[in-house]
């Protein structure tokens, strides 16, 4: 696999803030690559550098085999006072897409995302999910080789989010290279590879399985109706390092990788109060919680 995006010792400073502190990362052609990390980790800065909207303070980012790229930014950035059609027509003109080609491509893309019934609606009157689909269509109009999506589903309801991701899966299947950042860990599960970014540094990179395999601690899941009381009791155990809420379940993290010891300790502590206690493999969300604690952030 050849590299499409190759960042080497990438540094970006804004005044005294270092948004990226020496990032080295390679993304291959055809990947669906997910960038994860807390607020201020440098994800959006990386997108802007790849898109050449910024020049790095030092280091470099090389983008190979990309004639045009598409960008779906975090904030809706099309014209709210223009219709769906007018927005797309304007973009096609700006990028020199011939009228006949633009017309055919617009019709095809709008049908794929289910927006063909709304062509004459003002963009400002679309729902959150529809706006993001329009932004996606607009980004695809120039037939990019690389698609950059910066938290595209924030504020979008679950139905639209699912439809949006089926589209991204389809584009990936058709060979497009996608780089996406997201605060939803379940979305990161779709990615061929995942990178965790924190305060401008890469803390982990690999396939989902590689990342999960590198998790250094034992993990036990407990189901209970009385989460708060149980959580305090478990957090006080000597072998327990952290207890996090996962919906109706608790994830109990040990101080070591010894799963048997942790399971025994938790079982003994909860006695008969609990429906279900079992050792589990970590999810990407567990990994995220773990990485979030490793760096003392300001």
């Amino acid at each position: 696999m050849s590299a499409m995006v190759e960042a080497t010792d990438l540094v970006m400073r804004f005044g005294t803030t270092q948004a990226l502190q020496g990032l080295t990362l390679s993304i291959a052609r055809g990947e669906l690559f997910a960038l994860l990390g807390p607020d201020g980790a440098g994800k959006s800065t990386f997108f802007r550098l790849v898109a050449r909207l910024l020049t790095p303070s030092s280091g470099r980012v090389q983008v190979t085999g990309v004639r045009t790229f598409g960008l779906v930014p975090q904030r809706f950035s099309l014209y709210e006072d223009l219709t769906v059609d007018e927005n797309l027509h304007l973009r096609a003109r700006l990028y020199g897409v011939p009228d006949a080609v633009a017309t055919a491509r617009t019709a095809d893309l709008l049908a794929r995302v289910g927006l063909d019934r709304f062509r004459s609606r003002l963009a400002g009157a679309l729902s959150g999910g529809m706006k993001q689909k329009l932004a996606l269509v607009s980004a695809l109009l120039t037939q990019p080789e690389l698609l950059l999506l910066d938290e595209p589903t924030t504020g979008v309801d679950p139905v639209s989010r699912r439809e949006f991701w089926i589209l991204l899966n389809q584009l990936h299947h058709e060979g497009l290279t996608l780089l996406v950042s997201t605060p939803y860990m379940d979305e990161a599960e779709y990615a061929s590879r995942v990178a965790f970014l924190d305060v401008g540094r890469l803390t982990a990179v690999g396939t989902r399985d590689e990342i999960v395999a590198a998790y250094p601690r034992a993990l036990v899941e407990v189901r209970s109706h009385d989460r708060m009381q149980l959580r305090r009791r478990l957090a006080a155990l000597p072998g327990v390092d952290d207890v996090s809420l996962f919906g109706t379940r608790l994830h109990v993290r040990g101080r070591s990788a010894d799963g048997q010891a942790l399971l025994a300790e938790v079982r003994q502590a909860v006695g008969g109060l609990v429906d279900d206690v079992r050792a589990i493999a970590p999810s990407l969300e567990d990994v995220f919680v773990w990485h979030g604690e490793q760096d003392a952030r300001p």
Partner: protein
Amino acid sequence: MNTPPPMENLVTARGLTRRFGAFVAVRNIDVDIPRGRVFGFLGPNGSGKSTTIRMLAGLLAPSAGRITGFGGIDIATETDAWKRRLGYMSQKFSLYLDLTVEENLRFFGSVYGLRGGSLAGRIDALADRLRFHHVRRMLTEGLSTGLRQRVALAAALLHQPELLFLDEPTGGVDPAGRRMFWDLIYELAADRGMTVLVTTHYMDEAEQCDRLAFILDGAIIADGSPTTLKSHLAGRLFEVEVAHDAFTTLATLRPLSMFEDVYLAGRRLRAVLAAGAEREAIARLGLQGLAREAEPSLEDVFVSLARKRAPGAEEAA
């Protein structure tokens, strides 16, 4: 283990309706909000969640219906007494961007009649709990989304409200920030008996609510605990592990009418049988032995319920 106290309703709404011109945003809703619990409103964009919350908070007058609570207060006649008992925070809630964090909190505290040592003490305690001491002297404008959201929550909690309204409070906030936020919400409900009313698009957050109401086109179409709501899909969700080319399998199964929904979750393909479809149909697809019944998530429930929306209804979004 303590037995939970019996459910007592803090707020009761009957026949709640709100029209905007010819458009009916909320139609004839009955809802009871139990004291000391976390109550979630779910629904697609534009379904009427925020309108409902704004009416319950006394920010918007209903076109019809009645809201009472706090042991006998009627929102229509005693709006001020009502508002003093609640805190409100929304994604769009605006702190003053040209004031510092400290100035914002002092201002909101003074609006609620707090001053001097007690105000300073509460600001200290909240800054501690929500970890924003380091930005207290900074202009609000320069804060990240996550930090602004924590400060906005502090502003809504300063006067120690009995009822807290959260309207999509965590949009754009990273997972660590969302965890910190929810830990505090739970603590306030469990330890201080605060009642919380929340709308969210994050189904993992909804899963933590004690009780949920699903709103579609202005009406409550399902309600209950997360477990009750998930039982709607019991026996209808199947999961297949797909090693190669999951998307081709997805594209094959998706158009079949026996499925209400088929989607990818990483390398697993999840399929919801349409209501009334036979489970044997799975075997006929040659997926027997590969497909196993799976536990539905609240997101599966959400998608299934939202599909009941009248065709073309999203045009009103």
